[in-house]
């Protein structure tokens, strides 16, 4: 180490300082580049496109903020926005349900692993399959759910044909895999709960709900945080199920922003790239609120605040 110092003429401590400053950037560079190419530039581009009228084939036509003005006067946009909010609120149910199932499956009983793997199942199968299963479940005429309600009230409830119930029907389908996902997160979290703390709490006489609330749950905070993040993002991105189960119908009442964006920009009757991009920008802005919140929380945690 002594020879190079003489050759370059830079004193070793300074060079080491330089290396220490440069190294993280070098390590970050490939990731940052990918982030730039696949995330930042497309976001910028879709914002740019939202100022145009463009069918994807002919020349672009600059119209300024006209797409956004049209959004303000678009009933379908408000329907999508409202449905997105319903998704966001109801999807949160996945977290307590997931926790409950995880606690249930965390018992040491013979054969519990078989149950565990059964509960993993909805998370493993594709959203498309989930959507198909539930559409058959709800289908008027032959669906199990329809037949059940028919038996109860005589006429039967066609969840997916009614604009007042359709969104709830789809969310119920979405909750199924999402609960399994939260359950997996909590099962992992439960493995990390310190046994000595449980032991100590037990010696102090804590059990049942009190044990859960004061001893176990605080230790599950990281798992809860991740569960909230994935559930919020999952709710805002909801697309597959809407597309498979209803195509946004009946008459557009189960649309969500991401599906409406697809309809306007890429579907058979759409090809309004600019308008679709404007919807995407709005959805991005909503996501940004949550993402900034999460980042702020993580930053605070790391600072130990």
């Amino acid at each position, binding site marked *: 180490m002594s020879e190079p110092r003489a050759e370059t003429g830079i004193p070793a401590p300074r060079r080491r300082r330089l290396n220490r400053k440069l190294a993280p950037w070098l390590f970050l560079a490939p990731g940052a580049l990918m982030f730039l190419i696949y995330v930042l530039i497309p976001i910028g581009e879709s914002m740019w496109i939202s100022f145009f009228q463009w069918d994807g084939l002919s020349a672009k036509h600059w119209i300024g903020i006209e797409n956004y003005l049209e959004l303000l006067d678009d009933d379908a946009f408000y329907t999508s926005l409202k449905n997105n909010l319903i998704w966001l609120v109801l999807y949160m149910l996945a977290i307590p349900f997931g926790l409950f199932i995880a606690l249930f499956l965390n018992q040491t009983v013979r054969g519990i692993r078989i149950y565990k793997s059964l509960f993993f199942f909805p998370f493993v199968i594709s959203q498309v399959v989930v959507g198909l299963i539930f559409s058959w479940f709800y289908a008027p005429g032959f669906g199990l759910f329809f037949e059940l309600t028919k038996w109860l009230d005589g006429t039967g409830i066609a969840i997916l*044909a009614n604009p007042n119930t359709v969104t709830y029907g789809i969310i119920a389908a979405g909750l199924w895999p999402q609960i399994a996902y939260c359950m997996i997160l909590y099962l992992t979290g439960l493995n990390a709960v310190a046994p000595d703390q449980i032991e100590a709490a037990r010696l102090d006489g804590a059990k049942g709900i009190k044990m859960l609330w004061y001893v176990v749950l605080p230790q599950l905070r990281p798992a809860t945080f991740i569960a909230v993040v994935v559930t919020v993002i999952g709710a805002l991105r909801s697309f597959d199920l809407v597309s498979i189960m209803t195509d946004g119908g009946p008459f557009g009442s189960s649309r969500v922003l991401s599906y409406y964006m697809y309809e306007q920009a890429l579907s058979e009757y759409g090809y309004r790239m600019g308008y679709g991009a404007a919807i995407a920008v709005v959805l991005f802005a909503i996501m940004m609120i949550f993402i900034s919140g999460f980042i702020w929380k993580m930053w605070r945690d790391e600072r130990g605040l």
Partner: protein
Amino acid sequence: MNFLKTTALVALMGSIAIPAMAEQRVLKLFTDASDPAPKAAFEQLVKGFEAENPDVKVEVNTFDHEGYKTAIRNFLTADSPDLANWYAGNRMAPFVNAGQFTDVSDVWEENGLKDSLGSALKSMTIDGKQWGVPYTYYQWGIYYNKDVYKKAGVDVPKTWDEFISNCKKFKEIGVDCLTTGTKALWPAAGIFDYLDLRTNGYDFHMKLTSGEIPWTDDRVKAVFAEWKKVLPYTTKNVAAIDWQDAVSNIVQGKAANYVMGNFAVATFKDGGMTNDTLGFMDFPTINPDIPRAEEAPTDTIHIPAGAKNKADAKKFLAYVARADVQTKMNEELGQLPINKNSSVGDDPYLQAGFKVLSTADGGIAQFFDRDAPAQMAKAGMEGFQEFMAYPDHLDAILERLEKVRQRVYKN
């Protein structure tokens, strides 16, 4: 070094080219003929063309029917085939206007197609030029279950009033008079088109779909008033079922009538219906003073602007337009040829359809989503679907459609 490379390259190319026959030219055809019958028809079409043109090899690339509608926009701008399937009327306008289709007026001129394919000339012409060649169309109308008619003791109606009075009889025996499945929206448009064609006629319908008439017009409201008469007798919850599910309502005798296109016959028969139980009738008359117009969507083949082998592609179009070729192809498809010198198979539904279409003196419409521009079509079909579930929302629906009309046709 360079010399070595060149010889190596030549040797390599030679070794590939020789087994593939040096003389043969390739014609790439992209199609959405993914269902069994259309697929067989295209295979047979390609074989026939290759037999007459041994120096041309046609490579067929078949897409899923729905996926094709998205794919075509990508492959037209990126990697064009030499031939591509599409539809006539307003549906091809975006591609023509964006310069993605080749003008094939010369093929029409040289082969006398303006005469032999005359019935489709109007729907193939934009800016006075022809942009593709039609090879098939099929009638729409009402398919019905003959057994259910017998059970209810009613006759096949000629007028809309008779149709409605039949509905009451069907209700008495617990059968839906009219069924449909509007999950994919378009089946509802078939009902609207016919009601409009029978209430206001072809010219009005064309003006409406091309944006010249406000949706809040009283004549439009009159169409919905006719529709409302049949709603109490229509299958419930149609918004949640596919059109194939509605077919089973007819097959099982739960419903009597279904406004559909002739392509559904295969599905009816797969469900176990025969020529003895499945009936076809023309949509009943509403206003007797209006010349009878019909609905017959036309399928077409086009040459993309980026095609590499346009000379052979034009030969192919001329081949597809020929009377004998269209006869044979449509026998396989179970549809009607466009060429007036072709003959129709002995299928009773096709014979009926041929008679209905060739005597329609009012005009031949394509279909709501092909006559109206895409955005208007989507909004309109959603409106029809909503109207079927909530007829009392009509005013709000029409106002919404009017708003869309003012935006869509502005440009």
